[in-house]
């Protein structure tokens, strides 16, 4: 969907006009009361669920969560996935033409924040005629957007589902993000962000950025179990290779992930999204007091964390819960004992899925006016 009205950004800059690509699943009811917005994280898109015709490899990034009969049941809810500004999956981003210059934006694409994304999503909701969402939901960076929705548009969110997220990044989180950014910025093929004109892609920088990021999504135990110190293509006598190629399985795995990522992801997008992560801190305007930052929220919340997630640890989620409790907001909080680190929010886990299913069951009962037992 194209928006001709300029979008003012938190940085003071503005996007003159822009396009948001989105997908919807299910049917909007006559009262327009069953809409759920699903916000995406770093490397995902508007393609939340389902498959494209004739492409069995195209399952949406949250296909295990969203679909007919699933935890977020599209037979009941009208689900919207929207690609954020600055992304590389269709919505206006740094690879698109800057109307002011006729050249790709590149480095000139303005830095966007979580709040800017939410403001853009709200315009999409307006255009779709959705006054209030039954729920806004997201994991990780998507959870930040859900939280921002509840703060920026309190009356437009009945339920806010925040999974494996945090009210702010820690110094360690920011440090990892900056290492990733430096990998991209120092790649000679980056050309200060204008690599499109040079017909190259800063592939090495993107690979290293993804490798660093990927380490933080897995837990130590998970890595130990999956890879341990297993050697890759070990010689007959199980010896080391004594060079700087691939010895260990984990090296092979990370390089494969990095290679794959560098083929489809945009370097400028990676910079923009990690910056949006770093900047998110709704308590900042309230001297660090998250309770005050959440004082105007009206939604009921469902907060979920995973015990082995050291990137956005349960402590981060508990901080959100504590601030909500202080404000006497309705809140459900689950701490799922899953072994997969931050990535757990995308994976199948019966306790996790059942909890989310139960919560959406409750939203459904509310939406349809049914009392709980």
């Amino acid at each position, binding site marked *: 969907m194209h928006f001709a009205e300029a979008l003012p950004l938190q940085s003071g800059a503005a996007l003159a006009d822009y396009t948001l690509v989105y997908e919807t699943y299910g049917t909007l009811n006559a009262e327009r009361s069953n809409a759920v917005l699903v916000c995406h994280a770093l490397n995902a898109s508007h393609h939340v669920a389902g498959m494209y015709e004739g492409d069995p490899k195209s399952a949406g990034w949250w296909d295990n969560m969203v679909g007919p009969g699933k935890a977020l049941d599209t037979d009941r809810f009208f689900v919207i996935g929207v690609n954020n500004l600055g992304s590389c999956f269709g919505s206006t981003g740094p690879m698109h033409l800057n109307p002011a210059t006729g050249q790709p934006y590149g480095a000139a694409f303005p830095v966007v924040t979580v709040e800017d994304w939410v403001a853009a999503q709200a315009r999409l909701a307006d255009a779709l005629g959705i006054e209030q969402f039954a729920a806004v939901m997201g994991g990780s960076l998507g959870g930040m957007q859900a939280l921002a929705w509840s703060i920026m548009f309190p009356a437009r969110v009945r339920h806010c589902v925040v999974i494996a997220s945090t009210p702010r990044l820690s110094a360690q989180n920011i440090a990892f993000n900056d290492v990733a950014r430096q990998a991209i910025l120092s790649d000679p093929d980056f050309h200060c962000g204008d690599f499109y004109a040079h017909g190259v892609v800063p592939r090495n920088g993107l690979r290293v950025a993804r490798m660093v990021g990927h380490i933080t999504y897995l837990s130590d135990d998970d890595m130990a179990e999956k890879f341990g110190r297993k050697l890759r293509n070990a010689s007959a006598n199980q010896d080391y290779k004594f060079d700087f190629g691939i010895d260990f399985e984990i090296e092979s795995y990370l390089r494969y992930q990095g290679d794959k990522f560098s083929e489809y992801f945009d370097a400028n997008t990676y910079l923009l999204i990690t910056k949006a992560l770093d900047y998110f801190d709704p308590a900042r305007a309230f001297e660090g007091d998250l309770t005050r930052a959440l004082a105007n929220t009206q939604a009921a919340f469902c907060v979920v964390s995973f015990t082995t997630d050291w990137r956005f640890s349960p402590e981060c989620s508990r901080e959100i819960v504590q601030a909500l409790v202080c404000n006497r907001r309705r*809140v459900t*909080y689950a701490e799922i004992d899953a072994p997969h680190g931050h990535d757990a929010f995308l994976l199948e886990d019966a306790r996790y899925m059942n909890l989310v299913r139960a919560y959406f069951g409750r939203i459904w009962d509310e939406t349809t006016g049914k009392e709980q*037992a």
Partner: protein
Amino acid sequence: MNFEDLSSLRPDLAFIAHWVPEAAHVLDVGCGDGAMLRYLQSGKRCSGYGIEIADDKLLESSRRGINVIQHDMEKGLALFGDNSFDTVLCLSSLQMMKHVEHLLRDIVRVGAEAIVSFPNFAYWPHRVALLKGRMPVSKTLPYQWYDTPNVRCATIYDFEELADECGLEVLERVALAEGKPVQFLPNLRGSLAVFRLRKKKLNGGHDASSLIT
């Protein structure tokens, strides 16, 4: 959930529900399947939260539509501010705690009043079992000694002593058998002990418990 449902499901909870004021802000520590909070919400217009550690109970509570927070009570109630609730419930959970005293102090810190219940170890069938040389196994203590989650065994008299030490005033004390109060020889004939407590007020109006901790 209405009162009749609660009475038939859990008569002890139905009795205790009378002690919770209308529209109170309630914390239910160890809320289990959430039946009590559900009734307090729908039947007495109460608000508040349940705390539960077990995944299956959390799910049941969530299905009931109550606000449930997964948390290990053993780690205390630091999540909640002082006096943030009208009533704190801790029903048939305290006996499973390793840090009973710490939790009890925390319960009265966060709430104006507390209602605490636990299986009365001095209930006469338990005494008979011990006289026969065996650990008691009953409806309120349905476990064998080697698999019981109840790590603390207390009688009504024992708990009174601890409450006093923690600077708590006993507002009401009832022993229940089959969900009904026992008037005569409660420490012998009651299987479930229920206490309504609050911080003792000193002359200056300070909370006694805050001076002790």
